[in-house]
């Protein structure tokens, strides 16, 4: 789960980090009203993509009229496939320096890496590539967390201004604390602005949270409502399904992520366009499979569904029952091809045979059949 910039800043502010005074607007009128209060301000589109500045989605407004006009231009506009539903208006800062402060899960190194650089405001991967000595990394002990002196060493190694090093160290400690508190996989403040008066302010914020840990963060539910996510994916998540909307016309369901990915690959290799990724996972039961089929068929582009099951922990008979029940309950006329092997495959096939479902003997066979059916050529 990714937080919007304004949400990340709410979290930062709650943890004691300084953030600019700001307000969210969903209409130009709200933006004007906000600018009345804020004075000269920055209007920032709230979307989950980088490069907003270059694309003209972060702009300074000198007065409310300008703010309203900027909001009008941004709201509803698209950026790299995302639509802007909200803008954040913030008091303009008196910027003296721009630092970078972040923490990220390094899956390959098996660490949480705290990173600090005095070269903020630009893509940190660029800094890492061009000025590696300017990006200081710290991998604190996973149980103990960073000790004050470690953060201090990091700050001095990065060349942080001595006048603000305490605040920067405090900020880094807070980033680490928030990372664990919220089960983050990424927390990033870029830029961390040093103002002329020596304040240290989180001028931007990225915050990504481990979906597997959301069960222990009911406090984040409120943030989800404001999400820009794909409605089908939101619906699938509500149903606790591993679903990714891909945009093609061949609905895909498989048990196991690897098998689902491979099913996509095979469908694509046979000239089909996968509509989605959907893994009904290990212990899927009839109701789960039915629910999955409902989500797939909520996608109006879907013209056929290929269900690819290999039974391990999932029992073939249960999957078959789920498919049959799902099809019956939905009364769908979309063609469905089912391929089933593994644990209790015979029992499963027996159940499938009773319903009007097209059997397939392999992934390749299934892919060919569903594509043929969609193209009106029969299986």
């Amino acid at each position, binding site marked *: 789960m990714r937080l919007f910039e304004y949400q990340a800043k709410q979290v930062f502010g709650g943890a004691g980090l300084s953030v600019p005074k700001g307000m969210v607007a969903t209409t130009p009128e709200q933006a004007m009203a906000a600018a009345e209060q804020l004075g000269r301000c920055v209007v920032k589109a709230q979307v989950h993509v980088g490069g907003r500045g270059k694309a003209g989605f972060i702009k300074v407004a000198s007065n409310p009229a300008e703010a309203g006009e900027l909001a009008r231009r941004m709201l509803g506009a698209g950026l790299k496939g995302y639509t802007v539903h909200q803008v954040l208006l913030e008091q303009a800062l008196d910027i003296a320096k721009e630092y970078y402060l972040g923490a990220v899960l390094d*899956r390959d190194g098996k660490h949480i890496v705290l990173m600090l650089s005095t070269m903020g405001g630009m893509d940190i991967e660029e800094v890492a590539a061009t000025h590696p000595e300017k990006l200081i990394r710290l991998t604190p002990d996973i149980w103990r967390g960073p000790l004050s002196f470690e953060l201090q060493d990091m700050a001095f190694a990065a060349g942080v201004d001595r006048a603000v090093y305490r605040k920067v160290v405090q900020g880094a400690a807070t980033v680490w604390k928030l990372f664990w508190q919220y089960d983050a996989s990424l927390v990033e403040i870029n830029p961390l602005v040093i103002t002329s008066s020596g304040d240290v302010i989180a001028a931007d914020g990225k915050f990504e949270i481990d979906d597997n840990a959301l069960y222990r963060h009911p406090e984040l539910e409120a943030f989800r409502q404001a999400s820009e996510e794909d409605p089908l994916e939101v619906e699938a998540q509500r149903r606790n399904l591993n679903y990714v909307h891909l945009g093609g016309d061949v609905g895909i369901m498989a048990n196991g992520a690897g098998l689902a990915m491979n099913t996509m690959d095979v469908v694509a290799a046979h000239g089909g366009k996968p509509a989605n990724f959907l893994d009904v996972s290990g212990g899927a039961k009839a109701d789960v499979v039915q629910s999955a089929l409902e989500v797939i068929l909520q996608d109006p582009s879907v013209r056929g569904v290929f269900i690819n099951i290999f039974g391990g922990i999932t029992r073939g008979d249960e999957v078959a029952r789920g498919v049959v029940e799902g099809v019956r309950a939905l009364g769908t006329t979309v063609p469905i091809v089912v391929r089933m092997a593994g644990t209790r495959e015979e029992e499963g096939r027996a159940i499938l045979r009773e319903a009007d479902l097209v059997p397939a003997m392999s*992934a390749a066979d299934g892919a060919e059949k569903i594509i043929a059916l969609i193209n009106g050529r029969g299986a």
Partner: protein
Amino acid sequence: MGILLGPDSRLVVQGGTGREGSFQTQTMLEYGTRVVGIVTPGRGGQQHLELPVFDTVAEAVREVGANASVGFIPAPGAADGIMEAAAAGIELIVCISDRMPVLDTLRAYYFVKNKGARLIGPNCPGVTTPGVGKAGIMPGNIFQKGPVGLISRSGTLTYEVVNLLTKAGLGQSTCVGIGGDPIVGSSFRDILGLFNDDDQTEVIVLLGEVGGAAEEEAAEWIAAHAKKPAVSFISGRTAPPGKRMGHAGAIISGNRGTAEAKVAAFQAAGVPLADTIEQIPALVKAAL
């Protein structure tokens, strides 16, 4: 003689009294696995599936000499179960549980490492050594004893490949599902090392997928250290970036973890790559 799960393995099932745990314990027993007990806190002293139930792993180690464990513990308690096994002196810890918070896994990872134990998973189908036993959820009927060592990040796709291998007359030494999470106890590289030193294993099949750099590391390792031929396959070639493909670990971040990079790494290491899983048996035969 295969790796990890051998004739001396004495398996305890953590969470083996639950619905899924019971079902899987039953299939492990049916496969002939030496299961010596079940651990479910609060149910110590009972019998389940004719096996003794213990409150703690330490008791199972003390009472029935358990030295391997397989865990069917729901995600919130899974890390604790892993650490409990490691602290009790279990040498092989297989964690089937999925949806574990990655920070829980990270802490469990270091705990296990400090104890000198081996962790397989989480979010994995486990380990099967045909003819010896299985610690996990792989369907036993598809396996056959033989010279192929198999390592995979996925579950069902692995069964497909095992099925194809067996049908092609290519039996397996051990099949290891290392798990689909961003952080797992044992990497491709770790398991490659074990197969490298295993007499029975003559060829290694490696099933990778998008996300992370474990396949790239594995390819480098093979080029530098492998004493045996390897065959590889990558799934998720059509996966879009930024989207988690079911497995928490199967996500392309920016331009890191792409199928292209992994394919290129195996090519650079001279490891044959199958385009479809159906090609794998032929590549294995060619490598033998």
